[in-house]
């Protein structure tokens, strides 16, 4: 295990250094996230001026929900995913395939490096906004914070698996953007990133409940907001872990099948 990590951690360090080298990129993603969050904040401010609770969420909970989603999206978002599919589309995957390493693990550790940097910047912004906009005190007990931290990590791993799985679809089409976009729509809707699942009709909530996407966004938020506590929270962590294992294995199998279909475009 230690040898495994020592071998792959280099990829993480590499992408981290790459991210940090372009320092302007930091500020940029912070500003970009900020604009997106601001629109939501203004919208919810008006809506909560009319009513104090919407579908069981009050102002505090809704803003925290929005911020957690923004944090998760910034940590592993569109960029990482596009990078994954790019390797397949532009053929640079060919040189990776010749190396004596597991492609999936390599991609994971690369994404990790990217996400540590992006997520770190986003975390500062999100905490600052949470402190100014909401009353955090009811949510800051050590037990639920610890559970939330574990849940976030599992969510990150699952998000990676889902993005990786989607990226592999590019083996079968040359229109990478379309695939990434379609997966983005499905993930956004079913994970609760677009709106809390409580806002959707009952049949949709049942459907979302049996799919993996909700475990990557919705479930962690429920732990942080204290809507699910104690045993229920532990059960959620177990469910998340289960989905990570299932999706990781499925991706591995799918990769072995897909790599036979590979057509590298050009030299």
């Amino acid at each position, binding site marked *: 295990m230690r040898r495994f990590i020592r071998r792959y951690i280099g990829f993480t360090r590499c992408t981290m250094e790459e991210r940090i080298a372009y320092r302007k990129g930091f500020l940029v993603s912070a*500003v970009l996230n900020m604009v997106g969050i601001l629109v939501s904040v203004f919208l919810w401010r*008006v809506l909560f001026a009319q009513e104090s609770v919407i579908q069981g969420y009050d102002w505090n909970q809704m803003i925290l929900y929005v911020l957690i989603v923004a944090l998760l999206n910034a940590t592993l978002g569109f960029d990482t995913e596009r990078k994954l599919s790019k390797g397949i589309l532009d053929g640079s995957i060919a040189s990776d395939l010749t190396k004596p390493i597991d492609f999936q693990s390599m991609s994971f550790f690369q994404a990790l490096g990217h996400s540590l940097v992006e997520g770190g910047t986003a975390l500062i912004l999100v905490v600052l906004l949470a402190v100014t906009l909401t009353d955090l005190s009811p949510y800051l007990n050590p037990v639920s914070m610890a559970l939330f931290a574990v849940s976030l990590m599992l969510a990150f791993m699952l998000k990676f698996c889902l993005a990786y799985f989607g990226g592999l679809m590019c083996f079968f089409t*040359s229109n990478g953007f379309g695939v990434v976009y379609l997966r983005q729509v499905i993930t956004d809707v079913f994970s609760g990133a677009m709106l809390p699942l409580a806002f959707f009709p009952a049949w949709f909530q049942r459907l979302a409940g049996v799919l993996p996407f909700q475990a990557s966004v919705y479930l962690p938020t429920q732990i942080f907001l204290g809507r699910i506590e104690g045993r229920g929270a532990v059960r959620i962590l177990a469910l998340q872990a289960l989905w990570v294992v299932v999706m990781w294995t499925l991706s591995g199998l799918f990769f072995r099948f897909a790599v036979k279909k590979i057509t590298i475009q050009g030299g």
Partner: protein
Amino acid sequence: MRTIRIFFQMTGANLRGLMSFKTDFLVSFFAGLLSQTIGLLFLSVLFQNIPAIAGWTVYEVAILYGYMFFGEGILTLFFQGTNGLWHQVRLGDIDRYMTRPISLELQICGRQTNLAGAGTALTGLAVMLYSFGKLQISWNLWKAILFVVSLILGAGIRVDINFASSALAMLLEGAGGIKGAIERVQEMGKYPLDIYPKVFRIILLTLIPYAAISYVPAVVLLGRAPYPYFLLLPAATLLIIGLRKWIFAKAMERYEGAGN
């Protein structure tokens, strides 16, 4: 006149180029049609839980969405070349353009055509017409003229904002993020101006006039404001054209070539 003719010749050439890849041509058109799915889903799910946003019902807000989609579509379809000016600088494209006897702006605008924009623009039109139907707006000749004018000026504003922010990024030497941030502000054009603090309202009507694209014509057509309010749209158009010209001139003044 000559400018318009050359622009259409360039766009035509781009389209012929795109059409040589038939599947991709169709795929990008349909991708454009579907590109606003998330936004529309968000709107419809949200409104199943709330009655209105600051007094605006779902179809009224949908009209704002439609205006934004339409502008975005036209920008992507005909004027995608205004993206990534600093990138063109790095590639040395600008040097090449300067040696030709037609205007630099024209060459930048007509550089790229993307059929996905047609799908997006059509979605916008469809959303607007459907919503107008649902709202049972009483049309008259005046309103019809204003609607068409607002679509044209709105798309123009969208292009000018894009061009200006691209030139700004060029002026600041590759701070590409500033353009992305300004582009992201367009989300604000999708909701009634009333929900924003005063500073934002002023900015959205003047410096980054996304609200002039959607909100200004919508309030007039929906009968929420008197006709003269519409004048804010041409005023914002003139302002952003001036701003774009000024920023681009500044950027070209500082321009030193790609250096190869």
